[in-house]
């Protein structure tokens, strides 16, 4: 279970740069939460702070996984606990092939958890299966990680990693942006097939589009670093129709 308590976060070493201004959120095992919000509301920051991106600092509040604070943990330690962030803009790593990278990541997690590392043979089998399932062009995974990948290919590659690493808490940061409808469906199918009572998701998105394919249990509206409304899947449809206007205080004043 993930619990976010009164989370405040700023850009590291920059004064008055608070982006998250008291986020409270509780994600139980097996739940899919969607976080929606206008541009600049702090959605991506929230996703990144959860994963421990060093560009941000937590100034108040806490993040708990199964009751234990992870606020001081490094990103790799969080990954070992089962957190996963599907990046909006995955980094390109020249000369490193996806197989090699994922094997190292898989091994690192196993080692940290005191589990046995998967043999090369078994891992390759798993990898090949997932490559097919996610629908990545097999030639692509022979290339350098994300290098020269199109936007859609990068997102599929993120889904491949999600499938291989089988995290217990997956955060998808605008994974739908830059995807065509087919790719969107593949991402959604990936998530849906991985839904289980043991695994939760936070799906960060600007548009409701992705939620046509992934039905969330709970939808939150994040505005100006705070969750301003929480509801069921129907809330996403309201936003789709009316936009975020009514949540924006400035708009209310001028409108």
């Amino acid at each position, binding site marked *: 279970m993930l619990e976010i308590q009164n989370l405040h976060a700023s850009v590291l070493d920059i004064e008055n740069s608070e982006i998250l201004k008291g986020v409270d959120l509780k994600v139980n095992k097996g739940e899919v939460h969607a976080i929606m919000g206008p541009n600049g509301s702090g959605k991506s920051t929230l996703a990144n702070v959860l*994963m*421990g*991106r*060093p*560009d941000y600092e937590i100034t108040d509040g806490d993040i708990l996984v199964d009751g234990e604070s992870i606020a001081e943990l*490094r*990103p*790799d330690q*969080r*990954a*070992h606990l089962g957190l*996963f*962030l599907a*990046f909006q*803009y*995955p*980094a*390109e*790593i*020249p*000369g*490193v092939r996806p197989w*090699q*990278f*994922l094997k*190292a*990541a*898989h091994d*690192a*997690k196993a080692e*940290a958890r005191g589990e046995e590392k998967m043999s090369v043979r078994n891992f390759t089998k798993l990898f090949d299966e997932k490559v097919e399932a996610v629908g990545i062009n097999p030639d692509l995974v022979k290339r*350098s*990680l994300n290098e020269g990948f199109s936007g859609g290919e990068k997102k599929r590659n993120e889904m491949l*990693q999600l499938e291989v*690493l089988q995290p217990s808490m997956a955060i998808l940061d605008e994974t739908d942006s830059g995807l065509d409808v087919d790719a969107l469906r593949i991402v959604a199918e990936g998530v849906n097939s991985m839904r289980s009572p043991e695994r939760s998701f936070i799906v960060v998105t600007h548009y409701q589009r992705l939620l046509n394919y992934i039905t969330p249990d709970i939808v939150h509206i994040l505005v100006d670093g705070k969750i301003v409304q929480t509801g069921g899947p129907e809330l996403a449809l309201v936003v789709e129709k009316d936009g975020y206007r009514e949540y924006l205080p400035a708009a209310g004043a001028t409108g």
Partner: protein
Amino acid sequence: MTNQKTISRETDLSGQEYQWGFVTDVETDLAPKGLSEDIVRLISSKKDEPAWLLEWRLKAYRHWVQLSDSEGEPDWAMIDYPSIDYQDIYYYAAPKAATEAPKSLDDVDPEMLATFEKLGIPLQERAKLAGVAVDAVFDSVSVATTMEEQLGELGIIFCSFSEAVKKYPELVKKYLGSVVPYTDNFFATLNAAVFSDGSFAYIPPGVRCPIELMTYFRINTEGSGQFERTLIVADKGAYVSYLEGCTAPFRKSHQLHAATVELVALDDAEIKYSTIQNWFPGTPEGEGGVYNFVTKRGRADKNAKISWTQVETGSAITWKYPSVILRGDNSVGEFFSVALANNHQQADTGTKMIHIGKNTKSTIVSKGISAGQGNNTYRGQVQIMPGAENAVNHTQCDSLLVGDQCGAHTVPYIEVRNPTARLEHEASTSKVSDDQLFYLMARGLSEEEAHHMIITGWSRDVIRELPFEFALEAGQLLKVSLEGAVG
């Protein structure tokens, strides 16, 4: 595995506890410090050399004295070091007896063995590196190895330089100094005068050497200079892959290493020369370390190919430009390099490709990694001579910066004297980005693993040129060499 395909010689060049070092309390037979004609004569007589070789050494010595009195050491490289007192160096050191050497791996410092394991060095190799094996070569004297006999059946000669002088004087006489003459440069001249030992290989016409030939060099004696000389001749249509590994023990004082390597690839021959250079780089504070001034050059005749691959992680100073003289038509020269400068290391390295023959082709891929306060310079020269119709060169020079106190420099010289030449030069400078690090760490890799993966990935174009076993070692070496540069 690949182990069986490698014949390994070891030249133990001089020992204390830096990671690759160990103290070998071997009683050493030292000539007095300093350089003089008498010392040159002493070295030659200790080795029982023929008169012609002594004469050659003396000519070199006299030329070196002249150079010392006039221009001195070359000063064009981007390296900075206090002047070297050539009279404060031992020029000859040979162990009297190896009785003090460890008898088995059980007698060797477990920490050192752990390091070897970390480096992925095979067990047998670890024993050798630790000075256990009887065929190990301490300081400047080499001992023969067993597989020589098998090679002998193919007519392949692989032995120490001294042995070659005794057994194959005609071959040595014919090719010694034919690619790097004793007048070549200050350090090569010094080497010619006082070279201690080294390796010699000869592959007869049409023979493909079935195994990789390998030499491990070590420096043991404190305050001794190291001057080995390697000569490899691939006769017409022959092929050989040669590996060279270098380690030196921890020393607070600097050690001078001035080696010379000559490669001769006759018509249709191919020589692949791979180096992992891991001389002691000095302490993180910049104390001690090897001054590595090396002259390496190959001559490629008609349709011949010479390929240099190097991973340079050690030495306080690296001054090294493995070159190819493409004198035969259709000859090919290659240079693949990863050079790392961490802490206070300085590397000024690159290559020279001299195109003389028609349709000659050269490829240069240089990757420089700078970390800590390290300074890394690529210095390359591509020369297209008037007769070199249709010469082609492709140069790629990449620099990677780790941290914000290091430096990367690129100094390419291009000289084209034939209008049909085609040259390409690409260069890039990049940093290990925070985005890359976060991405890998978010998948569970530690910061160190993440750095290592980014850096080895970046170096992959070069590392994949290495024979498999060496490639693994190179990857590990980059990792170990960068420890402390990260975080």
